[in-house]
Each structure stands twice: as structure tokens, then as C-alpha cells.
């Protein structure tokens, strides 16, 4: 299976501090890949370099074999990457459905259309996407009054407007109740499965990660310290040490159960 996304030796330093150093990995087609790591590990910086919000110091990013390193986000988006943000960025002055319609208008390259009524364009497509993420009943609400978890779901709908080949989701379930988290990740897993797209996400909730991710990568202080199946990462001593809080308690319990 050929890789959808190929990242090699990606590095970023901010004034002498290496936020991300020499990170290499690839994402396969229809793979749900988790990127985990403690706060400040460099996850968001990684995401920003993948989509062009931040220019890497060195390294390359390839999407379906084409180099997209340092390309502007709007161009990367047109190449087929969709993204949701850790801190949501939606259009507060528009209704929920208009937020999705805006992205559809952009996808159909009708941004400079000075004639048609925007709110009548691609409405059924937008509503279908909202239905997919379970937001159809809120489609006419003003975006400014939504709960945070709903904004996250709206962002997912927006990210899906141009049928991406790869979804980047930065903490998609932050600000949600535990039940919602599981539901949203299940939804993401279904989308990945049905549409055969790939998704890379960061997450702090290990239940969510271990329940749904096909593969897990662990980032610590800018370096990738583990990359493998859920089981492999769970049992990786180094990961337990740096990420799971020293891991001694976890380790002891496991020893006891084995014994």
C-alpha cells in the first residue's frame, strides 16, 4: 500500500529551541493514525508544518508523492488536506450551514462570484455534511452561540467539504463530554472506513486513542519516540516513562496481574 502522506526529517526550531526535530513518518490510505505526546511535545507545530501554517526549518512533506513543503495552507487545502483546529476558527457571523456552504463555495472556486445569493448555493450538500456529523438540527443557528463541542463537529464538517484525501484533526474531542468523545471518534473511524480517506489526529484522551487508532505515534520534546500498533505503544517502556507519568504505578499493576 502506497503512502498518502510522507514526512521525512521534518524539523522546526524557534530561536534555538527545537520544537520538532527530525520527525519522519508516513500515513497509509484509509489509516486512522494518532499522534500523542505530552503538552508542548510539538504536536500542533507538526500539524502546522504539514498544512503550511508554519514553514519547517528543514525536511519535506509529500502528499501522494508531490512535495507540498512550505506551501500556503490554502494551496495545501486544494491539494486535498482538510484540517480542524485545536482552538476552533469558525465564521461567527454566519449560521452553521453557511459556514459549510462557504467552504463549498471555495471548493467550487466561486469566491469572486458577485451575482448569486450565497446562502442558496450548495445548501443540500452542506446539510448532508452536517447530518453526517450530527449537526443538522442546529444548521440555522448562529455560529457564535454554539457549544464548544458542536463547533468541533462543525469544523469536521467543514474539513470534509472538498472530499479530502487526508484529514488533520488537532484534538478533535477537546471540550466534549466523555460520551461525545467516543461518538465523535467512532464517527471519524466510520468516515475513514467508508470514504477510504486517511486521518491523522492528536488526542489527550487515551481511551479514545486506544479504542480507535489503527496506529499510534508518540512525540516527546519534538522527537518521535515510538511508532507502532496500539499494543506496541502501550507496552513501550520509554513511552510509559515519558508520557504516562513515570509509569511505575502502571507498570507495577501490570506486573501484579501477570503474576
Amino acid at each position: 500500500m502506497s503512502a498518502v502522506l510522507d514526512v521525512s526529517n521534518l524539523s522546526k526550531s524557534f530561536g534555538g529551541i527545537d520544537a520538532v526535530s527530525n520527525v519522519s513518518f508516513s500515513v497509509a490510505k484509509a489509516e486512522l493514525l494518532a499522534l500523542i505526546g505530552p503538552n508542548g511535545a510539538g504536536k500542533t507545530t507538526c500539524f502546522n508544518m504539514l498544512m503550511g501554517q508554519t514553514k519547517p526549518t528543514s525536511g519535506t512533506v509529500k502528499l501522494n508523492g508531490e512535495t507540498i513543503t512550505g506551501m500556503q495552507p490554502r494551496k495545501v487545502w486544494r491539494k486535498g488536506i482538510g484540517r480542524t483546529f485545536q482552538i476552533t476558527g469558525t465564521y461567527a457571523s454566519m449560521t452553521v450551514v453557511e459556514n459549510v456552504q462557504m467552504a463549498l463555495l471555495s471548493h467550487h472556486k466561486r469566491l469572486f462570484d458577485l451575482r448569486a445569493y450565497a446562502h442558496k448555493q450548495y445548501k443540500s450538500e452542506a446539510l448532508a455534511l452536517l447530518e453526517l456529523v450530527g449537526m443538522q438540527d442546529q444548521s440555522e443557528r448562529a455560529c457564535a452561540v454554539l457549544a464548544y463541542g458542536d463547533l468541533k463537529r462543525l469544523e469536521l464538517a467543514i474539513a470534509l467539504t472538498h472530499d479530502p484525501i487526508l484529514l488533520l484533526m488537532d484534538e478533535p474531542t477537546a471540550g466534549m463530554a466523555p460520551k461525545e468523545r467516543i461518538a465523535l471518534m467512532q464517527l471519524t473511524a466510520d468516515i475513514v472506513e467508508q470514504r477510504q480517506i486517511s486521518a491523522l489526529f492528536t488526542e489527550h484522551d487515551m481511551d479514545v486513542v486506544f479504542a480507535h487508532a489503527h496506529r499510534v505515534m508518540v512525540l516527546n520534546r519534538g522527537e518521535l519516540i515510538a511508532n507502532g500498533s496500539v499494543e506496541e505503544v502501550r507496552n513501550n517502556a520509554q513511552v510509559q516513562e515519558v508520557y504516562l507519568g513515570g509509569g511505575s504505578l502502571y507498570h507495577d499493576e501490570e506486573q501484579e496481574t501477570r503474576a
Partner: protein
Amino acid sequence: MGLFVAQLLTGLANAAALFLVASGLSLIFGVTRIVNFSHGSFYMLGAFIGYSLMQVLPGAIGFWGSILLAGLAVGLIGVVVELLVLRPVYKAPELFQLVATFGVILVIQDLALMIWGAEDVLGPRAPGLKGIVRIMGEPVPKFDLALIAITPFVLFALWYLISRTRVGVLVRAATQDREMVGALGVNQSWLFTGVFFLGAALAGLGGAIQLPKGGADLLMDFNILASIFVVVVIGGMGSLPGAYIAAVLISVLNVFGVAYIPQSTLVLMFVVMAVVLTVRPYGLLGREEVAGEHGQVGEPDKPIKPAGWMARIIVLIFLVALGFLPFVAEPFFTILATDVIVFCLFAASLHFILGLGGLVSFGHAAYFGGGAYVAALLVNYANSPMELAFLLAPIGAGLLAVIIGWLCLRLSGVYFAMLTLALAQLVWSLVFQWDEFTGGDDGLVDIWPSAYLSDSTAYFYFTMVFGIGGILLLRHMAHTPFGYALRASRDSVRQAEATGINTKRVQWVAFSIAGAFAGLAGGLFVFSKGSIFPVELEIAKSFDGLIVVFLGGVKTLSGGVVGAAALTLVQDYITRFEYWRLALGLLIIAVVIIAPKGIVGSINALFRYRFTRGGDEVKE
């Protein structure tokens, strides 16, 4: 060589007042995020109060004491303004406060006229510093040398206050994040008041200290405004050393300009500014403004929808009624209605970028006047038919907006606003000083429409077609995909860019469209008046536009038009009185305080409050 040194010294001396006033503006903006348009008025008050004090206080101690007392007095006036006018509106949408400060300008203008009269006053010369010193054979006033010596001490004292004292720490903290400072238990409102006192006092000092050189007159408030904006922007927002360097740079250049290229003194300042900002977009010593650093003040806009059939019918009835105006009213009202429509179109074009795009342009008059001048120049020199000149007015203004927009859109927020102001002033000074071509202050006259439109009734219908047509077109664009892309670029640049929208290009196109429609208004204007003068390109004209858009309601689609109509009608009535500025100023301040969402916004809110129960809207 001697002359050169003498001129250099004159420039340095002139920088003193400029620096004092500009540093006050910079401080006030840094902490309160208020662009204080009335800062020039504080400067003027400082000059007049200093003058009056010098009449009664004798000797050298009296002279310098008067300057300090003038600073103190203006500082206290600043406190009064802050407490009465600004405090009630801090929670209003971003930049709404500048409308209030514009009201303050008008009030202070008339109060100064009442107290000191219309005559310019000559400042007394400084006791003990009346003579001159010969430096390399050239005469240099002793007072100039005193100013040159004093300014660095003022700079040092201010710098010490800001960077080495506890008060300074609070001020700097508030500049970065005032909400956090409030959360840490600092009484924000008094911090704001204190900063306003200091900023106003500095302006007052600046006004008083330049008395021996420049005296005092009623035009000095607007005259210094452009210069201090330029100084603050060239130096870098919030940087005191930057303001000093820029003040020196501008003053020295000005002196040399007067000596060597007198026909371009005004242009020079803005050329320097454009060059500096091209190389260093955030000024000489300024920092890049981090997006979202200060957060959006006030609630977000409401979603918009095209007018329903009910609203359309009402508008249609209104327009038909308006069409019958020439048959039922005196000719005077037809002409007034023409003026109103022209101004409404100008306001609607500004609202397009300001309301929908969030792009605060302080120099929108450049396109209105620009369009008018394009038409007038064509008629004057090429003897072109009115129709062609009228057609080329919006095109010329649009092209001007394409160029200026390209330069300005590399910046954002208040830097963008300042640069639009500076470039508009550049256009104004070009027109004002290029006598041979533009007629300078005398303007261009005899620019009349074709014979079939020469009657004021005919021209009224012509204005209705193009003016109201333009307004409706702008309004329609708000509902198109382009209008949505413009709002998307305002609401979240990050999301817009991450979904394929080239936000800068969208804003550039919008800026150019707004310029073209302002030019259309200018074209209508010049043929209705038969003449054009540089006053149509002035800051005051740009401010008029801003005022009506904010007063009408920046977050509503019809705000600009309603505000423009209201202001023109009120102004027409009120200017018959002697102290109309006072009345208008107070009226503006009252509207700002009573209706902080603008006229339309507040009416909408009132209706919603009355007629909705539950649902999203009540959450306000």
C-alpha cells in the same frame, strides 16, 4: 554649511512639540486601544490655556509655570472626557469610541471659539530666551536651543516611567492584555483614566511649549492630527524612542523641504512614511502586532439575510415617494436630497469594507475626492463630455484604490488604518500643492453636467438612478459568495486560509470595489456642485464617512446609509446656528452613549428584545 546646521537645529526644535503630542497619542492607544481623534484638540487647548496663563503669570517662572499648568489643565480635561464620554462606551464594538472622540473635537472647537475668539493669537516669547545665538554665522533662536535640550529629558522621564516603575509595568501589561491585568486585581478603569490624563497632559504640554514659535489658532487641532499619526506610525506604535526619532525625522525633513522644495512639503512627510512602512511595516521600532492579541471587543455580528418581500416593498414605496419629491417640495429639498444620496453612497462604499471586511480605512475620502477630481480634470483639460468623465470617475478612483489597497493590505489592524490615512493625505497634499494642474486651494470650477441634466430636478433623478443603484448593488454584493468570502476573511483568517480562500486577495478586490463606488459618489458630487475643492479629500471628509458608518451601525447592512442620511439632514438644519459644532458634537456623543450599537443596530436590538422570547438572540 552654517545654514544647513541652522536648519537642522530648527528641525530638532520643531520636533519637541510633535514628539510630546505623538507620545501621548501612542500611550493612550497602547493601553486603551482607542484611536483618540481628539488628541489634536488637546494640543490646541494646551496652546490656548498656556497663552491665557502667560498673560497673567509674570517672568520666566510664570512662563514655564504656565506651560506646566497648561499641561496639568489639559490632563484634567482629558480625565473629564474619559469619565464622561469614553467610560460609558468601552464595551461598545471595536473602534466605536473613535466616533465619540470625534464628537469631542467638535465640542472643543466651539468652546475654544467661544472663549478665545476666532482670531489667531501670537504666543509670547520666552523670558530670558528672546534673543538669538549665532552658530557658524547663522542666527538660531535661543528658545530653539532650549527646546532641543529639554526634549531628551522628557523622553528619558517618560521612558523611565514606562519601563522602570510599577505604574509603567501596569501600563505595559495592560497594553498586552488588559483583561488579564483586570483579573489580577488592578483597577482597570482608573488605569485607563490615568493613562488618559498622562496622554492628554503631554498633548497640552506640546501645545503650550510651541507657543513662542507657532502661537495658537482654531485650525491647529486638525493640522497636527495627520502629523502625529504619521509620527506614531513611523516610530512604531507604542515605542517612545521610536516616536522621538520619527518626530525628529519628520520635523527636520519638513524644514529642509520648505527650504529646498517648497512646493512639495506636505507630500514629503507622507512619502517618507510610505517608504518606511514599505521597508519596516510596523514602524522603525515597532513590534509586529500579533493577530488576536487584543481580542474582539463586543459581540460578533448577526447572520445576514437578503431583505424579505415586506422590507423590499417598503423600500420600493419609499423610493417611489422620493421620486415624487421634486413635484411636491421646493427646489431646495431636491438639492438636499441629491446631497443626501451622494453621501449615502459614499458611506455605503466605506461600510462595504469596514462592516463586511473589518478593514478600517481612515482615508476613504481619497477615492471620493479622487473620483471627483478625475472627472473634473477630464472636463477641464480634455474638454471631455460629461458622460465620459462621469464614467471614468469610478474607474479612476478604483485604480487608485487598487494601488493604495495593495500597499496597505500588507498591514492589518490599526497599522492598516494609519497607512490608509497617510496615503489619503498624500493624495490630498498632491492635489493641494500642485497648483498648476489641480488649481490647488482654488479648486476646479465650471464642471457642469450635460444640458439635459442641468436642471436640478433632472440631476436629482440621475443621482437617484446611479446613487441608489450603487447602494443597492453594494448591498447585493454582501449576499453573494464574494460578500461571504469577505466576511469569512474578517471572522477567521486562519479558517478561511485553511479552506482555500486567499483572504488578502478577497480584501484587495473589496477595497478596490469600495474605492470605485466612492469614486462614483465623487462623480455624482462634482457634477451636482459644478466645482471641486481639496476639502473633499481631507481627513475631515474621511472621518465624516467613518462617523456615519459607526453612528448608523457598523454591524448592520443599512447602517452606513441610515447614518449618512441622518447626519446630512441634521447637519443641514443645525449649521444655521452659530455654535452648531458644539450642538452636533454633543449630539454625536449622546448617540454614542445611548445607542452603542449604532442607530440601526440599537433599533434592531430593541425590537428583538421586545418581540422574542427564548431562542438564540436573547443571549445578548
